[in-house]
């Protein structure tokens, strides 16, 4: 039972967050254009190259001041969507708005956007401060403003000490910070980040992720469209996440909601690892729960999508929501045979075969981990697992 995904549908619960953000926005006013906070709107945007559709009827609203992450595998259309906002890709159909302004036919240089790309693209013949000043000078901003704003932006990203250096004299992380400062210097209406951390090594990426989160705390009224294939980046930074596949938006929602209650199989598998077990929905229970049958076992799970009784669906269990069965409890028990046990430093990963289905469990390091081939019983809290429709939504994007 497919549930069409709409970016509008999940908005009501975010009103309080928005109010709090607006209050913070005032504090960040010096670094953003006063009164120019804008959202991004995609209205039925389609992009095709010679008949090949790479982005299909995307309808999506990014509200002012929020971070929306578009994630998906290579070729899913997420970068095309971002490039359409930037103006480097012309939609074959549909409209793109920034705030109230329709920018579909506006040249990229007149859109007032900040953009940070994967390889930073700092101009190698300019020093860090000249890179940051580039957009201001291109717009004919006075020297006095340039002199004031360049150090301000470099300070924001902690790079004021490196102002005189050329890009080749900076590390990858430092270059990325300068690239962000450069994008912010023009006080953009929206900031587009195209896989900004993917060229960095794992340690610097984590550090930069923290920096980006801090940056958005400092500039809460900045609207950000963030394209990545890394679910951790998306979950860490984004208020809302859009999951794309084959040019279509297959899921959109608040990050936590989407993670806890994925609307389809692809979302469950792409956003965080999930165990998906085929079950049959039995009867509703109190508290939004439903009973399901998995083989001989009767289990309970949340049913946020209102799947009707008797429907074939998937039980979505995150590996960290499973725990080794303790005591003699009989509810929500999955029994299987251990296939492998891996110690990964801060956790143990255990793979089991449960009635012919592979199940993965992660837990804190065990003193006496089970051995492969031994039986093991697992339990879970019904509120931690969710039912997912077996059939993907037919009409994505809302």
């Amino acid at each position, binding site marked *: 039972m497919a549930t069409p995904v709409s970016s509008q549908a999940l908005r009501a619960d975010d009103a309080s967050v928005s109010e709090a953000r607006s209050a913070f926005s005032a504090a960040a006013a010096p670094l953003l254009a006063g009164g120019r906070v804008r959202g991004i709107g995609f209205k039925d945007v389609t992009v095709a190259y010679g008949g090949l559709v790479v982005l299909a009827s995307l309808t999506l609203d990014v509200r002012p001041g929020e971070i929306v992450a578009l994630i998906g595998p290579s070729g899913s259309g997420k970068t095309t969507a971002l490039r359409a906002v930037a103006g*480097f890709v012309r939609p074959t159909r549909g409209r793109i708005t920034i705030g109230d302004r329709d920018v579909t036919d506006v040249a990229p240089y007149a859109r007032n956007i900040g953009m940070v790309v994967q390889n930073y*693209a700092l101009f190698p013949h300019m020093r860090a401060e000249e890179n940051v000043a*580039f957009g201001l000078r*291109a717009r004919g901003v006075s020297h006095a403003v340039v002199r004031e704003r360049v150090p301000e932006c470099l300070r924001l990203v902690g790079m004021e000490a490196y102002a005189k250096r050329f890009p080749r004299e900076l590390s990858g992380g430092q270059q990325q910070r300068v690239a962000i400062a450069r994008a912010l210097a023009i006080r953009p209406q929206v900031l587009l980040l195209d896989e900004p951390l993917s060229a960095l090594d794992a340690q610097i990426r984590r550090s930069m992720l923290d920096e980006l989160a801090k940056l958005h705390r400092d500039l809460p009224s900045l609207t950000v469209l963030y394209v990545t294939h890394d679910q951790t980046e998306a979950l860490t930074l984004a208020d809302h996440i859009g999951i794309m596949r084959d040019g279509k938006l297959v899921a959109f929602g608040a990050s936590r909601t989407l993670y806890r209650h994925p609307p389809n199989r692809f979302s469950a598998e792409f956003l965080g690892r999930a165990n998906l077990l085929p079950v049959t929905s039995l009867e509703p229970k109190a508290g939004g729960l439903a009973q399901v049958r998995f083989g001989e076992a009767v289990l309970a799970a949340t049913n946020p999508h209102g799947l009707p009784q008797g429907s074939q669906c998937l039980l979505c269990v995150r590996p960290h929501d499973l725990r080794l069965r303790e005591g003699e409890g009989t509810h929500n028990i999955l029994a299987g045979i251990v296939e492998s046990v891996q110690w990964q430093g801060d956790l143990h990963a255990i793979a089991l075969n449960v009635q012919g289905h592979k199940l993965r469990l992660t837990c804190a390091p065990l003193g006496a981990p089970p051995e492969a081939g031994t039986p093991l019983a697992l339990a879970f809290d019904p509120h931690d697992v969710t039912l997912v429709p077996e059939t993907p939504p037919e009409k994505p994007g809302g």
Partner: protein
Amino acid sequence: MLVWSKAGRVLAWVTAALLFALIYGVPIGVIALASFSGQWNDVLPSHLTLAHYINAMRGDSAEQTQVSIITGFAASAAALICGSWAALALRNLMRLPRRVLDVIFFVPSAVPSVSVGLALLVAFSQPPVLLNGTRAIVLIAHFVLISAFTYGNVAAGLARLPPEYEQVAESLGARPFYRLRRVILPLVAPYLIAAFSLSFALSMGELGATVMIYPPGWVTLPVGIFSLSDRGAIFDASALTMILALSTLLVLVGLSRISSRAAVR
């Protein structure tokens, strides 16, 4: 490294040095020696003298050096502007017209220079455009012959330029001419300088077309060298050849220093 053993590397270097000496060193050495020769009746020249260089610094030869350098600079500058313009324009075309025009731009490099000279002579010897006997026809011939190389160099540089630079510049509000001036041209500067250097060197050495079309009063060094050789003044021709080579080398070294600085950035 293809050769790992020390003996092998020594052998490779010695072989390379011998080949270089044989192919480049001996001809240049002979011309250099001839340019100082009073007589050459034995294995080595005798009666060494600077008279040929003194002759070269005076009268017609000095003027020919000047003409060559002016022609080289003017034709190379024009070729650089037009070649860069063409390379920039073709970048944004669809694949098919781009390929067709690409081939057309390279045609002059495939045609013998004598044929280019002949074609210009035929084309511009009758009204309404009568250029025969003017300096302009020499400049045009040099421009036609070197423009393909200039275009090729600049196009190669532009092809290596990641599109992100321009896109980021554009997103920051840079209009097309500002992007060209502040981003594209500085980034392809090493290729522009290389293109100019190659064009200048080719122009300085051009003879085939020039000898067919040069007017009185606009004789280039290669034509002068050819005339001297034809009259049997080998030593004077050798001195002029050395001046031609050295002046070309001097300009190329200067340009390569600028190119290195641009590349380091």
